[in-house]
């Protein structure tokens, strides 16, 4: 499985750049359009959570995105340099109908085949998103 990692500052204006990096990598592996959309959306949600909640929009803190791709599976790993990220995910409640935030984790669970949250040894949050290429293509 080929793995490539990208590291970004916690800057919302970098979202377009990281998306270009990810789309370029997915295109290199001929990932079909609907699966590409799912990967991009869920990684975007994890990136935004890392930026706003994990790293508190502190530009000195980094977000690392690693993508592993083979014929059968895509795995995305998004890690921040925050603290207590796992606890805040565990405490998360469903957003109200007029809430302006809180829908990102639900979208990750919906669009990824498997979603896991782990705490890094430094206390940051690591989000692991996995997608099955074959099952996505059949559906």
């Amino acid at each position, binding site marked *: 499985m080929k793995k490539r990692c990208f590291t970004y500052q916690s800057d*919302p204006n970098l979202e377009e750049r990281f998306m270009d990096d990810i789309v370029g990598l997915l295109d290199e592996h001929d990932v079909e359009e*609907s699966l590409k959309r799912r990967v*991009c959306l869920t990684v*975007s949600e994890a990136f935004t959570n890392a930026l706003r909640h994990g790293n508190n929009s502190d530009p000195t803190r980094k977000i690392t995105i690693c993508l592993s791709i083979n014929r059968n599976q895509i795995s995305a790993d998004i890690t921040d340099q925050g603290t207590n990220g796992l606890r805040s995910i565990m405490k998360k409640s469903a957003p109200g109908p007029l809430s*302006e*935030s*809180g*829908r990102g984790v639900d979208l990750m669970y919906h669009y990824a085949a498997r979603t896991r949250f782990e705490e890094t040894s430094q206390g940051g949050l690591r989000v692991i998103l996995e997608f099955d290429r074959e099952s996505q293509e059949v559906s």
Partner: protein
Amino acid sequence: MDIIIKDESNVCILNLRGRLDLASGTALKEEVNKLFAQDKVSIHFNLMEVEFINSSGLGALVSIMKEIRLRKGRLTLSNLASYVKEIFEITQLSHIFEIFETETEALNSHQPTLAG
């Protein structure tokens, strides 16, 4: 994101093109605030050319809708691509927003009804 604004007689139409995410959602709210400053509170978003939307983009739309409601105005959406529509359905925001298939249908709904 590119935002093209057309000012019709009783409704402002915003054609959105590109990505609707955290950064562009903030820019969109700023554009709409300029319309509020001109007392324009009947607003339509044509999303035909929105190629990507995430929860931050949805949050910006919810924020704008709430502000419009406070100002006794109205927000409509139209021309959602299938994948955008799906995201509205998953998040149940399809029940919150007034969503039309076409811009024409949405604009017709903005027309004042004549009292009989």
